[in-house]
C-alpha cells in the first residue's frame, strides 16, 4: 500500500525532505520506521532515538504500535513547542 509520510522540524532537516509517498507492507507505524531505517543511513540516524520523536496517524497523535491498515498519512516530528 501507499502511505504519505511527513517529517517536521529537525527530523525534516536530517532526512532532507518534508514529505514522500512510501510503498510499504508494514503492519504498524513501528514496522514502517524499521523499514525506513533500513533504507538509508540518514533515516537510520534520524530515527535512532524514538523517545525524542512523536508520531501522528491521519493527523492525530498516535503511538507507534498503531496499525497502518487503511491509513493515508503518517507524520514524524520532535516534541511540540508551540504557544
Amino acid at each position, binding site marked *: 500500500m501507499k502511505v504519505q509520510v511527513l517529517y517536521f522540524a529537525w527530523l*525534516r532537516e536530517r532526512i532532507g525532505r518534508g514529505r514522500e509517498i512510501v510503498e510499504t507492507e508494514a503492519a504498524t507505524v513501528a514496522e514502517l520506521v524499521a523499514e525506513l531505517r533500513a533504507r538509508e543511513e540518514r533515516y537510520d540516524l534520524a530515527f535512532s532515538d524514538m523517545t525524542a520523536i512523536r508520531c501522528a496517524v491521519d493527523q*492525530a497523535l498516535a503511538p507507534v504500535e498503531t496499525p497502518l491498515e487503511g491509513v493515508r498519512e503518517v507524520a514524524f516530528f520532535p516534541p*511540540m*513547542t*508551540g*504557544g
Partner: protein
Amino acid sequence: MAEPASIRVVVTEADFDLGAETAHLEAGGDTGAVVTFTGRVRDTGGALRRMVIEHYPGMTERALTEIAEEACRRWQLTGATIHHRHGTLVPGDRIMMVATASRHREAAFAAASFLMDYLKSRAPFWKKEETEDGAEWVAAREADEAALDRWNA
C-alpha cells in the same frame, strides 16, 4: 439551555488584534468574563535574530479545534478563540493568543490556562531560534509536559 460556545481557530502568518478578538468574544449577552493569553517573542539579551515557526497544516487546525472543544466540555464557556502564527518572527512580535469567555471568572481563567497547557504540548508547532551563532530548534520543556497532569487528576 445556554447557547453553544462559539469556537474560533486561526492559523496564519498574520498578526492578530487582541482588542478586536476580545470584543468579538464579548458580544454574547451572557459573557461576564474574558481571559486572554498573548505569547510574544522575547528579546533574550539581544541575541535572538529571528524565530521561525513551523507547523503541520491540516493537523494544526484539527488539534487546536479539538483542544478548544475539550475546554468547552470541561467548563461552561460562551466562547473560545485560538490564534497561532507561523513563519518568521522577530523579537517583540506576537506569536499566539488564546481567549476564553464565560459568565464568571473562574471558568474563564481555568479554561485559558488549560488551552495553553494543551496547546504547548499537543498542537504541532515547532520553534527554531536563529542567533548570530546559528540556528537551533527549541527543546520541549519537561515542565510543559508535566503541566498536563493537573488537568487529569
